[in-house]
């Protein structure tokens, strides 16, 4: 996906007839466009396409952190390696049979689906509230921007403190309300760690979702609601029959952006629940192998897999949903 090969570079259209003298306006503009795009394409090639290709290459070698350059090409052994022991037993090794990896895949998928589902519902609610006319709307919109503006690491720390087992305010509130009988170690216990991560992520990203949905809502003409009101249609029905179909494109785009973002989550998990196998995601485990455990090539293989999963997901989503992400067609 991100490779920027010469085919995607602007192709100068050949003119309908051989031109004499000075080049035509369209040609001049296309030539300028080429030079305008070139620096960006080169920059993106250097920081995206090239490193991606190297990552894929490393995933096929036995490179380690200290030995990047003398690495041997070992084919797909980081992914799957089948070995016949002399005793006749076959053993399988590699990422594809690594339970830790599949645990991370499962964690990531679970996290992404649950968080995006909640964010979509909450985002819709917040967007509907912001779309209504009421006093203090500007203030509420400003307020919901705050979680979005706070750096993820800071949110993780803030919530880590609030979710602290002994001194955390959340336990205190829940105890006072009688909802729990003893303090919960939210971030440490395997049962609740994922919940903790979800809570923070939903808190932090619902505003983004709400703003995108709100933009979609504001394109629904107001007369539509008035007409429905005059016809005496129940607001809930109006929502499902009129509003939802109309904001579907905006919603689809918002969901895909959030989904892609969720699938690559790293920082929140890394800081809020360090080293918890209940929350370790694909990004976390790849980096851990690559940098911390000095299994550079193994980590590269895992990140290549993550990339593949996301690429397939995007392709499927665009294909199924016919989402016009680039906005080219709706012009």
């Amino acid at each position, binding site marked *: 996906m991100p490779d920027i090969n010469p085919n995607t570079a602007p192709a100068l259209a050949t*003119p*309908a*007839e051989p*031109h*004499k*003298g*000075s*080049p*035509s*306006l*369209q040609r*001049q503009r296309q030539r300028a466009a080429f030079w305008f795009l070139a620096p960006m394409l080169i920059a993106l090639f250097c920081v995206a396409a090239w490193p991606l290709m190297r990552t894929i290459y490393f995933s096929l070698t036995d490179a380690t952190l200290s030995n990047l350059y003398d690495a041997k090409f070992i084919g797909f052994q980081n992914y799957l390696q089948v070995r016949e022991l002399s005793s006749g037993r076959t053993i399988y090794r590699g990422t594809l049979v690594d339970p830790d990896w599949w645990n991370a895949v499962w964690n990531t998928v679970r996290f992404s689906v649950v968080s995006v589902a909640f964010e979509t519902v909450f985002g819709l609610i917040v967007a509907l509230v912001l779309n209504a006319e009421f006093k203090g709307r500007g203030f509420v919109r400003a307020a919901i921007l705050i979680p979005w503006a706070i750096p993820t690491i800071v949110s993780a720390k803030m919530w880590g403190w609030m979710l602290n087992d002994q001194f955390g305010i959340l336990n205190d509130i829940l105890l006072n309300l009688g909802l729990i009988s003893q303090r919960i170690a939210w971030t440490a216990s395997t049962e609740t760690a994922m919940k903790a991560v979800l809570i923070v992520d939903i808190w932090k990203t619902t505003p983004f979702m709400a703003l995108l949905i709100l933009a979609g809502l504001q394109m629904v003409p107001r007369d539509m609601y008035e007409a429905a009101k005059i016809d005496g249609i129940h607001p809930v029905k109006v929502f499902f029959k009129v509003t939802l179909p109309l904001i579907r494109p905006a919603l689809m785009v918002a969901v895909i952006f959030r989904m892609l973002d969720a699938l690559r989550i790293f920082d929140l998990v890394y800081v809020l629940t360090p080293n918890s196998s209940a929350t370790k995601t694909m990004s976390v485990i790849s980096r851990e192998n690559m940098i911390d455990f000095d299994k550079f090539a193994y980590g590269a293989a895992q990140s290549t897999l993550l990339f593949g999963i996301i690429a397939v997901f995007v392709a499927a989503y665009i294909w199924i949903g016919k989402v016009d992400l680039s906005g080219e067609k709706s012009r």
Partner: protein
Amino acid sequence: MAKIELNNVTKSYGAVDVIKGIDLTIEKGEFMVFVGPSGCGKSTLLRLISGLEEITTGDMMFDGQRVNNVVPSERGIAMVFQSYALYPHMKVYDNMAFGMKLAKSDKGEIDRRVRNAAKMLQIDHLLDRLPRQLSGGQRQRVAIGRAIVRDPRVFLFDEPLSNLDAALRVQTRLEIAKLHHDMNDVTMIYVTHDQVEAMTLADRIAVLRDGKLMQVGTPAELYDNPNSIFVAGFIGSPKMNFITGEKAQAEGATTLGIRAEHIDLDEGGPWQGEVVHAEDLGSDHYLFVDIGTDEPVIVRRSGKLNVPLGTRVGLRPRPQDLHRFGPDEKPIRR
């Protein structure tokens, strides 16, 4: 100042042919108006002449020189857009001077030309304002001024008056006519929807339909001798009456055309019918008479006319003003 020739010019966007082979010569100093239904390609043709769009096939000549690949700024044209297209962040003066500044003209010369043009259009007191501080009419004048400063061989106008209100439109129309008169010999090409603009401004009118040229001629020629049913129906308001069937065959035509003012009320006339509607425009009076054709025939009389609805009247078309069209929709020559 330039003679413009189009030789079999076509324009396609991908598979869509928008201009389908146009031959047209616009003489030096001529005021040419393009008219036609919406989407017929008037703007496209104008933009081909300006060079903003490239022609797909054919040749375009300015004063005998082939300009197919010459960029707009080197064609010696100036363009006035419907939306004025002033640079919002530049003062009026800079808006008008921008082109000359880019051409690295002499400062004094720029100043002289900008002030001249401003004086001509009576906008010299506005030179220090930004476009947003101007009214619609003033903005359009600045846009025209910007064109004048470029001292072009050809002026191109794309519906320049359609964003103005009726009164301002008349006034600006007169100014454009005066401009054409004063800047003797400058060629002007003007796209419009407005019949009156076309008839009053044009030396010649080109009627386009679906990317093809239907007829070119002076306003009077088009009005009196349309070469097709389409042109006959397009030029003139109210629209020419068209009659088919027996009544047309009686005159030896497939379709008979007659303008509303060329029909007399006459009890013994060949067409008999009932008045179904009447419109009083003050100076003129329109009667809509149902004579058994698909649409009522419109009769135009000057002054007041008191004919109650439902009255039976007789109509007599003036024989010398009858337009007879054959089955190919072309006039039948006698």
